[in-house]
């Protein structure tokens, strides 16, 4: 149930959670921290969450995927400080059929991005700091906290 974690994400460890002798297809998605965003050089970033709601939304997304396809799903999202290249989110789906595994994996990551209350603050090489906001022009809004 703890889908939010401050630990490194390990796809092979997550895969072991959903692997089974009758599930021959395992599809995984890992989202990593990129070194650029909207033309700015990113040094590191920080994820924060509305933890209790994020946990229940992650669980709801997984249940929805498992009801819609014949799959087993596991999911983790990092919170806290991350460096460029770190895995921020991992979804692993196991199924008897690869089509279902691909469809369900895509559904889960799309839904996580759409409805799980997690936010990302980016720290840039030029010293500025901004919140990622997909609805804002340019995709970010400056952070106002000077100690940020």
């Amino acid at each position: 149930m703890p889908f939010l974690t401050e630990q490194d994400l390990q796809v092979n460890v997550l895969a072991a959670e959903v692997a089974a002798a009758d599930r021959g297809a395992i599809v995984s998605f890992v989202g990593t921290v990129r070194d650029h965003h909207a033309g700015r050089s990113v040094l590191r970033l920080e994820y924060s969450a509305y933890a209790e709601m994020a946990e229940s939304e992650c669980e709801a997304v997984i249940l929805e995927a498992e009801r819609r396809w014949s799959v087993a799903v596991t999911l983790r999202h990092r919170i806290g400080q991350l460096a460029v290249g770190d895995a921020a989110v991992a979804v692993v789906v196991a199924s008897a059929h690869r089509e279902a595994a691909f469809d369900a994996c895509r559904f889960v990551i799309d839904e996580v991005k759409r409805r799980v209350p997690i936010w990302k603050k980016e720290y840039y090489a030029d010293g500025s700091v901004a919140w990622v906001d997909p609805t804002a022009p340019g995709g970010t809004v400056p952070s106002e906290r000077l100690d940020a």
Partner: protein
Amino acid sequence: MHFLGAHVPSSRSVTVTVRFLARYAELAGRETVTVQAPGPATVDSILARLSEVLPAAGRLPAKPLCACNFRQVRGTELVADGDEIALLPPMAGG
């Protein structure tokens, strides 16, 4: 928490915790504030009271995404005494 038209609680006042998340906490200058409103109160009526009790809340969008007790809700939903109303910036996970 109830839908309008369902059982409506008495008209005595309702006290809820409003939680500001992520950038909204920066704008509000704090993470939570207690808001009291005459019952029956909706999410919208709590939001309308917000800048009276916390002027900095005037910097927030007029219609933020809201959750009540960790579930996304519309502004027209009723709130009950003790509920936690969370104001959520656009999500950016993944």
